């Protein structure tokens, strides 16, 4: 069976843990519980009749209180850059993290996840900035860990990309 390591990276309170909880356990909690350190989960997915075991590394959010240890990313076959659509600063953090991650583990597949789609009325993201990263070849998926919208799609798309190599 194919096994792939995926890392969840992004600023704090963007919904990384909630996305994993929604995908692995189909649950969601509105209560914000900050992640300290790392939590690892496993999920078996079926992709084109092929079983793929995903090892999900949920890293703590990046800010002045906690910096992401880049050694956690070793061996990752792909990663999610998670952005909170209602906080523009988390998009900038994601851009900075992408450059750092690529420097450490090279050009592995990744997806920019614009989370909190259920709060779209409060989104602060600029369409121009999103269009620019899409133009650079980034895959961007809008999601809501709360409603589940786009979550499965994000994980399966990244799995597909990793399997295709």
């Amino acid at each position, binding site marked *: 069976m194919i096994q792939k390591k995926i890392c969840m990276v992004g600023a*704090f*309170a963007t919904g990384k843990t909630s996305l994993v909880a929604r995908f692995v356990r189909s649950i969601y909690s509105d209560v*914000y*519980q*900050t992640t*300290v*350190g*790392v*939590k*690892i*989960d*496993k999920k078996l997915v079926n992709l084109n009749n092929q079983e793929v075991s995903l*090892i999900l590394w949920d890293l703590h*959010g990046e*800010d002045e*209180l*906690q910096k992401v*240890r880049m*050694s*956690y990313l*070793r*061996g990752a076959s792909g990663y999610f850059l998670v952005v909170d659509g209602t*906080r*523009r600063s988390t998009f900038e953090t994601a851009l900075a993290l992408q450059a750092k991650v690529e420097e450490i583990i090279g050009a592995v597949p990744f997806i920019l996840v614009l989370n909190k789609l259920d709060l779209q*009325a*409060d989104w*602060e993201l600029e369409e121009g900035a999103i269009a620019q990263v899409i133009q650079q070849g980034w895959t961007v998926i809008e999601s809501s860990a709360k409603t589940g919208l786009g979550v499965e799609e994000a994980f399966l798309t990244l799995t597909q990309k990793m399997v295709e190599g």
Partner: protein
Amino acid sequence: MSNLPASVLEYCQTLIFEQYSPAYLLTDKDGRLIDAGGSLAAYGVTNLQQGKPIAEQIFFLEGLLPLEGANLLLPCVKIEDEFCADIHLFSKAEGDWILLLNSNPEESQQQSIQQFVNNLSLLRHRQFKHLTQLFEYLFAEIERSLNLLKGNAMGESILGELLATLNILVLERSNDSLFTTVGVEPNWFQHFFPNPQEVHVQPQERFLFLENFIVDAEQIWQNKDSKPLKSGLWTETDASENEWQFEASAVNVGDRHLLLIELLEVAYQEKQSLIQTARENKLIYENFVKEAQKKEILLHCILHDLSGQLTAINCCLALLTNENLTPKGKERLAIGERQVIKQGNLIREILDAFSADIETFQAEAFDPDTAADIVQSAREVIDALLPTFMMNRVKLKLNFDLTQMDWQVVAEKSRLERIFANLIENALRYSPADSTVTVDLKTDENYIVATVEDQGSGVPPAIVDNLFKKFFQGKNNPGKAGLGLYFCRITIERWGGSIGYLPSPQGGAQFWLRLPKLSASRWAALS
């Protein structure tokens, strides 16, 4: 040209005055008090004497006056542990102005966040110190025990029990890269490794996190580094879905390579709680900033409206000069005109003082029941402005197709009228006498396009790109705050429309706006 009802305006003004408690002082160029007013008592300022140096009367202004060069903003100045104020100093022909605005809420919010961050730093420092002491003690004990091991099995037993009591599992890595437990296993061990009879343990098979860490640990063991390597925290879930937090350390003791896995209980909870609180506070602070920005926008809009009304009053006063007034009437008219000028200056100064960078403007849901009829809105604004146009000898025309009936757009009536007023007043300001300003409305399947065209000199190409930015004032601007077009843009964009400028083919300026028709928007929503 306000479309806010008087009661709303009055409420907003009261709100701002209550929140910021503005107070002002005016000094001459020698720093002597000329005038003072507003909520001075709120800042502990009383018993002022005109003509006396201000620095002798208000200690916190010592050394600040007279103002030389640029305006000065001193944010969050704490006065005698009681009041906190933003102090704005700006210079004008009549003297130096000092504007005091209450900033107590911002100050206490910032202070609370700073307090948390400082507490966190102190706790980190203390934790680091304790851990260092603990490890120093443990390593000394391990070394001492290993020395004893050769002849004293009792020593190993005591040390093993001590480490198990501290919830630390000690694994020794052999040359064949296998691990064996040293001493007594802590209680948590059996939750994850239920076969205690096994001689060798592969912790990375149960703890996937360690697969990654052991790569780095190998380097420490191979290089025989004396400094331990710590893994950082990680969380594991046992078979009963309970979460456990651990931290691993790779160390060399003599020739032995050890992997220590420590269960973190209280230490983790304390750290998690602190970070959680700090981050929650940060989120609250971010929301607070957003709210403050919204209030600033509101303040600007109110001032902008006041400015519009003042223009209308000014025009009326100017018309009065043509009337056959008594000498007493003329005298009162002159007083009125002076007050209008003073009020205008005050509005401009407050706008200057508040011209902070405002980036966000949160969306509001549009209520279709308040949708405006664009023809009706344009007509009402034109009717209101006609006297001003006549006085300036400029014609004002409205063109639209009378056979069309569907003129409802996704826009709220009062704001749409304010947008038209802005564009038409701008056109008047740049129109020469005996010229015409034309408002034209055209409709297609989904949108209505309105244009306001004048016969002035048009907008210089160099400033076209900045026209709709906030606080933008063109060269030789006859005197607005640079908010009108910014307000138009953000409002129209919020309704899903767009606004822009095109030079008129006849040489004047032509501003256009495009708004979705209500019927089309409803059809899209249903689809």
